[in-house]
């Protein structure tokens, strides 16, 4: 049951071969059994089982939607009414959301079950899930290794078969990098496809919700359920609903895959390079045509990102002031001290670092040199992709320069940590859809991810290409040791 695909579970529920209550209870037990992974911040069996019972009743009434009764784990960045919603921060360790995010509303309307809230880097700032106030998440492939971040809890949960799918968010690679490091499929759609309402903001112009699942097919189903126009998010795109499974059967013949030369140079570890090369060869074998492309400004994406994202974060996180909700210092003499102590105590080191960087780059006299320049680079990076998509349909490359690293290995070196996202950041800066799928194993038997970037609204095409690859390979079906049954 834990190995079954989401599609198979959906069919089993509809055929009443299994009830949602059974499925949910089984997964909750599994989550408890593997609590050492530290993948979840909050589970609430009572709430989950109540939803499962309601789903069963709905199925009995013959009113089931494809996701009715399916337990989904949610990154603890999505507000869910009545659920503790912490963003993995001490600052929100006492915050019970009084409302549902648009994404949660969508899942609730579909009859899905909230399996729990998953661990993450604090306020989604990190690439290793080590910045969480609730402790590091362990990689199911090796508990001494990080699962990647910031959506490390969702990634570990899906990789360890604790949940058939999970929601996540991606600001610079937070879905794709952990998907790569844990051997699962993760997709971040075009900016504006998934509403940000109720998704706690890190960097508003880059944040995008998405899915982590075990296959492209499952991801397509979940993405269809969670996306859609929302009047409460002014950056949400008003487009007709899409069936993201519609191109799953499309053959790869004639598909032009662009391979950027900049992504295979210095910094890419050999094991990852080899796995990605093999994957590209597999795509060619399936009929795709390889096109050499250049993304000339890609080296600028990390510096531009580390100006724009902290700038927006420094402002977005100002609301955490200890006044209305969240952590407030126990003792303070005046207003300034209330702010300083509450924020000093409530935020972790990485969040503080980014608030400081962001405050600095927006300061009078520095704004033009940093923020405006970064915005110009952002446009150049988008132009690079626009040029690339004139000669290819999808851009393929490595998701992350290396396989998962040891917990603690990069924690003291923020720059090394930031370079984890060197291949993924550009898609956020340009607002393009991007995904990672497993494509082999590298050093230490740890998974390698293949990065696929599409043009705006090319999610169905990307998912179709990934699905075709997954039909011909079984990397996505590999289960980490100890989690098979």
């Amino acid at each position, binding site marked *: 049951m834990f190995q079954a695909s989401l599609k198979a579970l959906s069919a089993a529920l509809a055929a009443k071969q299994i009830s949602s209550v059974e499925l949910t209870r089984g997964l909750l037990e599994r989550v408890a059994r593997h609590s050492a992974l530290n993948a979840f911040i909050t589970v609430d069996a009572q709430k989950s089982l109540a939803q499962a019972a309601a789903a069963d009743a709905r199925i009995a009434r013959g009113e089931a939607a494809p996701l009715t009764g399916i337990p989904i784990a949610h990154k603890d960045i*999505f*507000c869910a009414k009545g659920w503790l*919603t912490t*963003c993995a921060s001490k600052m*929100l360790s006492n*915050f019970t*959301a*009084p*409302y549902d*995010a648009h994404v949660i509303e969508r899942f609730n309307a579909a009859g899905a079950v909230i399996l729990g809230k998953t661990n993450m880097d604090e306020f989604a700032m990190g690439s290793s899930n080590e910045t969480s106030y609730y402790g590091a998440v362990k990689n199911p492939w090796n508990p001494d290794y990080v699962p990647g971040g910031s959506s490390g809890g969702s990634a570990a949960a899906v990789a360890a078969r604790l949940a058939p799918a999970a929601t996540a968010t991606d600001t610079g690679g937070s879905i794709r990098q952990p998907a790569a490091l844990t051997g699962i499929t993760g997709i971040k759609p075009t900016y504006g496809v998934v509403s*940000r*309402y*109720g*998704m*706690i*903001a890190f*960097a*508003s*112009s880059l944040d995008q919700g998405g899915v982590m699942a075990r296959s492209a097919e499952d991801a397509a189903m979940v993405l269809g359920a969670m996306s859609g126009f929302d*009047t*409460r*998010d*002014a*950056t949400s795109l008003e487009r007709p609903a899409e069936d993201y499974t519609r191109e799953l059967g499309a053959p790869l013949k004639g598909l032009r895959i662009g391979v950027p030369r900049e992504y295979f140079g210095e910094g890419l570890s050999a094991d990852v390079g080899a796995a990605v090369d093999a994957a590209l060869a597999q795509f060619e074998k399936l009929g795709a045509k390889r096109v050499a492309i250049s993304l000339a400004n890609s080296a600028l994406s990390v510096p531009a990102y580390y100006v724009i994202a902290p*700038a*927006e974060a*420094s*402002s977005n*996180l*100002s*609301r*955490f*002031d200890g*006044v*209305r*909700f*969240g952590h407030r210092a126990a003792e303070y003499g005046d*207003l300034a001290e209330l*702010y300083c102590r509450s924020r000093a105590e409530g935020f972790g080191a990485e969040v503080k670092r980014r608030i400081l960087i962001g*405050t600095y780059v*927006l*300061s*009078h006299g520095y*704004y033009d040199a940093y*923020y405006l320049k970064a915005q110009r680079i952002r446009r150049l990076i988008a132009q690079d992709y626009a040029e690339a998509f004139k000669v290819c349909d999808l851009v393929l490359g490595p998701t992350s320069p290396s396989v998962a690293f040891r917990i603690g290995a990069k924690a003291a070196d923020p720059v090394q940590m930031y370079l984890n996202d060197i291949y993924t950041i550009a898609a956020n800066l340009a607002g393009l859809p991007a995904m990672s799928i497993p494509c082999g194993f590298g050093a230490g038997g740890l998974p390698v991810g293949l990065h696929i970037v599409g043009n705006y609204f090319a999610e169905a095409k990307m998912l179709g290409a990934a699905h075709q690859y997954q039909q011909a390979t079984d990397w996505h079906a590999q289960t980490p040791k100890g989690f098979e049954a």
Partner: protein
Amino acid sequence: MSAQGQWEIVIGLETHTQLSTVSKIFSGASTAFGAAPNTQASAVDVALPGVLPVANKGAVERAIRFGIAIGGVINRRSVFARKNYFYPDLPKGYQISQYELPVVQGGSLSIFTKDGEKTVQLTRAHLEEDAGKSLHEDFHGMSGIDLNRAGTPLLEIVTEPDMRSSEEAVAYAKALHGLVRWIGICDGNMQEGSFRCDANVSVRRFGGPLGTRREIKNLNSFRFLQQAIDYEARWQIATLEDGGTIQQATVLFDPDKGETRAMRTKEDAHDYRYFPDPDLPPLVVSEAWIERVKGELPELPQARRERYQRELGLSAYDAGVLTASREMADYFEQVANGCGDAKLAANWIMGEVSAWLNRLGFVSDTPIADCPIDAATLVQLLKRIQDGTLSGKMAKEVFADIWNQPLQSQGDTVDAIIDKRGLKQLSDAGAIEKIVDEVLTANARSVDEFRAGKDKAFNALVGQVMRASKGRANPAQVNDILKKKLSA
């Protein structure tokens, strides 16, 4: 206060007008005034984690209306920006405003003072949200926060430093107040904070470079605006004349003491770290939208002023005063149309009506709305002047009578009151002649003096006749009859 001696006062105003939308600028919460604290603060207004702002179209449309009315440029694309600072009544830790690209740029407003008409140039008008309210009393050493006002839509209207006296500043504020109400974008309620001015004041020697300005914050009455500027300008001049210098600062006006005092100086000024709000796409205003708004605008004060001068023959000053508010202009037009004499209507409204409103200390933003004598009643009264029933003096008595006891409560018409008070003018030529004859007989000496060439004696005789008629004789007729008799 006008310029003092060799000093010129330079004033620019920033006015926060609360836009009359039903809901807030970035949330669906109500903007109604006076609700219990925090009952009109939605998740967005409280800035809960994860919430997002969505711009209120009604607020944008009101800004467009204003831009058209002042002849400004409506930017087809403007940008919402975040102004970052911490304060407990600012829930997000930033205020959403417009910075580099406001929705309206340029435009102008005509003002009227005793020196005549003047045009004040506007710099810009931008949309922004209001903050909440901090309450420092009644909480035993703590502060209370009321977020009902947080997110209320404001249009901040900024002038060039074009005004040279507090009179001009007040005239501008009144003209702006009249205009925003005229075009229906703001209720103008100053007690409730719907219309608040910040005054930038500096002084300089005539012909010299601009002096350093200090900004007086949050003036919510025309009187305070005048007092604050007067005090501030006097203080700056005195400081400079004593050899001191002016530090750029933000100051508050204390209406009880009639003084301004510094709140913060430039040194501790915030770095607001403005940047475009990534939650809100650029505000795009289409040509079609502007055209539609244009078509829905009422006749504007400037157009009415010109019409009153051109068609009704009023002076520029009178036309200006009568178009200070839409209520005033409508009242004037009803009276003018009713009695058929625009100048008579103008004289009465600007004379008697205004004098009574002022005398009774009406502080409302639209005094004419407080006038207990409606236009139809005033028309009845003016008609009795026109047909000779009442002299001007008598009409004023009737006016006072109706003012103090409105017709409805007296259950009467103007004519009935004239009868009841016996104020009807004596216009019966025979009756007047009889009085004249009696007066001439009793004042033979005055008659002799007049015939000897003393013109003054004539006035004395008129006075006697009026007295003898208890003031009721039609003065014009008295004049005629007297002249006739004396020259006989």
